[in-house]
């Protein structure tokens, strides 16, 4: 059952990240990887909400929404590659800012989600 839920969650989360990236990039351009930042932040709010609501890590709701949707909506591989690419393009300052800002935004978004989940 959990295997079905993780696959379903992944099948929803990954395209949400892709569509968010396309949407954000079309508005803010490709100079800074805002799309991935937004998708990662949104996923952190969602996972925080699921964890804050007190769902056990092996419960169906957590597996579907937390491990599946939020896990696949967020990405580390694209984040790391964007840093390497910015570095190769000679935009070292942007690479460093992106590398520093993303974890801070991610943890802050997670705390927001945790607070929302505990209320709801």
């Amino acid at each position, binding site marked *: 059952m*959990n*295997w079905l839920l*993780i*696959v*379903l969650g*992944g*099948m*929803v*989360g*990954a*395209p949400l*990240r*892709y*569509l968010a*990236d*396309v*949407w954000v*990039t*079309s508005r803010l351009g*490709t100079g800074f990887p805002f*799309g*991935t930042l937004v998708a*990662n932040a949104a*996923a*952190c709010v*969602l*996972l*925080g909400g699921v*964890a804050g609501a007190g769902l056990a*890590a092996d419960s169906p709701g957590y597996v579907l929404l*937390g*491990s*599946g949707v*939020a*896990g*696949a*909506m*967020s*990405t*580390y*591989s*694209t*984040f*790391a*590659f*964007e*840093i*390497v*690419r910015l*570095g*190769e*393009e000679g935009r070292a300052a942007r690479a460093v800012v992106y*590398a520093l800002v*993303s*974890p801070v935004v*991610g*943890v802050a978004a*997670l*705390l927001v989600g*945790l607070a929302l989940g505990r209320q709801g």
Partner: protein
Amino acid sequence: MHPPGTEPHHYDEPVDPDLDPAHLVVVLAVSLGGGAGAAARFAAYRLTPEVWATLAVNLAGCALIGVLVVLTTEVWQAHPLIRPFLGTGVLGGFTTFSTYALDTHGLWAAGDRVIAAGYLVGTVLGCVAATAAAVALSRTLVRTRVEGRRP
């Protein structure tokens, strides 16, 4: 198709190729890849305690994206659905930023503040190093192979 090393790297191309989202087939490729990647991550959690599984998954995924991008932009004229499926879908679904943030918070809340800070910073450094090393190693191996073929 140019042999590797004879053309500039096409890194203007976004990691998530900016194809028209109206092309539902791209969204479908990302979705199928995401399901597979998330399942592979779920499998990893069965092998080790979660925080170390997440670190291992993220390091592996970050190395693989480096290999994938070199192969699909500098070696092969990849089919336009390969990057959305394998990069955005499988590797994006496999790796996770949300669990990384939750793990950091969990370590911090448990009082392991030094470990939490080390995990937060160390994952960034380790993953960027894994990607950069994979890109460099892939280029070296590809170049060696191509040069070995020349008469």
